[in-house]
């Protein structure tokens, strides 16, 4: 171990500094970064949301107060995204949660090759959302999609279907692509929670004559409830933030078919250059997400017990 360096003034003071000052000093780099590149931009975004900024018309900022926020309510482009976002989020929640629960139950059993499967199912977590958009685009592509090839090989379709021409299909595929990416993480936290169930509960219920379904219904499920809710809230949050996948999968098409809330914010900001309007949308979105996240943390605090 090193001795305290020779008493050159600075180091000596550094090593004798009292604990709280020393602690604050260590957090300083992070605090500076967070203040300049997180707190400042948020304040900036909030300020812009109070101004009318239409860069396609003029570079001027007009202070309009909460007008942008009020305007969102009557903006049909905004209200049209709400059912889409709800459908997208709902499908994502259902698919992810059910699959993750089922997969976690499978991986919780002892069987040969389980560890290999655990490694394989981690794969989508590592794949960038942008790439997963590309992958699902090619899975369902009208002229070289694997899904079309399989369906026609099975004789279920006569000719290749142009999936992305149908808004419901397109939105569903976007949702699948998001769920595909979310599966590993959701499975892992469900699995971690499952492994916290004590073996004695299962043994006791077996003694009472409970079969596998009873055990799931009365032992596993109640124990998992907080984690399941956590997974659901997490998927709602990630659906509200959906952007990358849609950008490479459909670019919002067909028409406006896959323009969900967050995607519209991007379009308004960087294609229509309605900066004030986009800022107001993003601030509302952030508030929604922060409150939902707060909820999910509240739930997972309860999970610890």
């Amino acid at each position, binding site marked *: 171990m090193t001795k305290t360096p020779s008493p050159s003034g600075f180091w000596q003071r550094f090593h004798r500094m009292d604990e709280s000052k020393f602690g604050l000093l260590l957090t300083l780099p992070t605090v500076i970064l967070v203040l300049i590149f997180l707190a400042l931009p948020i304040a900036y975004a909030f300020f812009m949301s109070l101004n009318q900024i239409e860069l396609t018309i003029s570079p001027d900022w007009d202070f309009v107060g909460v007008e942008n926020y009020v305007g969102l309510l009557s903006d049909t482009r905004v209200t049209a995204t709400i059912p889409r976002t709800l459908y997208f989020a709902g499908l994502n929640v259902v698919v992810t949660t059910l699959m993750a629960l089922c997969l976690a139950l499978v991986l919780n059993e002892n069987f040969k090759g389980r560890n290999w499967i655990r490694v394989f199912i981690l794969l989508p977590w590592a794949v960038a959302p*942008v790439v997963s958009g590309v992958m699902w685009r090619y899975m369902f592509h009208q002229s070289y999609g694997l899904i079309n090839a399989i369906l026609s090989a099975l004789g279920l379709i006569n000719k290749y279907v142009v999936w992305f021409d149908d808004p419901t299909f397109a939105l569903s595929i976007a949702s699948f692509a998001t769920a595909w990416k979310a599966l590993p993480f959701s499975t892992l936290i469900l699995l971690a929670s499952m492994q916290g169930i004590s073996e004695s509960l299962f043994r006791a219920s077996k003694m009472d004559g409970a079969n596998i379904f009873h055990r799931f219904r009365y032992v596993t499920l109640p124990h998992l409830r907080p984690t399941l809710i956590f997974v659901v809230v997490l998927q709602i949050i990630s659906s509200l933030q959906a952007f990358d996948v849609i950008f490479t999968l459909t670019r919002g098409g067909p028409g406006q078919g896959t323009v969900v809330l967050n995607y519209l914010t991007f379009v308004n900001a960087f294609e229509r250059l309605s900066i004030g309007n986009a800022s107001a949308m993003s601030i509302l979105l952030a508030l929604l997400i922060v409150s939902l996240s707060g909820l999910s943390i509240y739930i997972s605090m309860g999970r610890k017990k």
Partner: protein
Amino acid sequence: MSAVPYDLSYSMRQFLYDRVRPIILYALAGIFVVWTVAPVLWIATMSVQPEINYVSVPPKLSLADVSLRWYADMLAQADVAAALQNSIVIAFTTMTLCLVFGALAAYPLSRLQLPRKNWFLTISIVSRMIPSMVLIIPMFLIMRQLRLLDTHLSLIIVYTTFLLPYVIWMLKNFFDQIPYALEAAARMDGCTRLGALFRVMIPVAGPGVVATAVFAFIGAWNEFLFGLILSTRLAVPITVKLSALVSSTFHSDTSLVAATGMLAIIPVVTLVFVLNRYIVRGLVEGVKY
């Protein structure tokens, strides 16, 4: 709970357990593996076959046609090679900064008396929730003001700031698990406080630190929105390059796009396969509050 009468004979139950249970388990596991692997495998197949093979109905995939020339073509293109290089530089630097700043901040949060510690913890949780869409316009303006648009540095700063709250949280949870006595012993032997952090805490939390590092690297590598807006030509990361290729009408050969997609995931997928044990633990640790 209602008692269920034993209506199955012992041998019947044994049969179900020995024969039927594995069938169900392997069938389900198989379905999940197919669901997980199919999209990756399809794009991988497309990336080593000429387009004509998978465009024909039904697809005529042939082993004889397998070739890596689309990868070679893409890597020979200066902009794609540069994008890969950008992603490596940005992700690696972000990871390093995240670990250094993260460890420095996580240590007092886990170990020291800090005034208003709860504030720090709350702020670090809240910063994780901020969606990037709310930051992107101001960030563009700030970076333009700092004359940092289209530089590695701008993306490194943004990613580091964005990932630090996660990194701090993960490291804090790992540090919390280290017995206090280890550190006390080192301090007794004359180790300084910083020495205790770098010579005791970090090595002992080794696997956790690896998990955190991989998490930061992948987070930076996979990011898209900031890359799209803050870079135009010189600092373009591979995710942005890929999205440009997908929507461009110039390329005639889809195999090239597929190969680029593979190039964009090969480094991170390799990391995950090699270090999967650490990663699983790190992920679970990151959402413990």
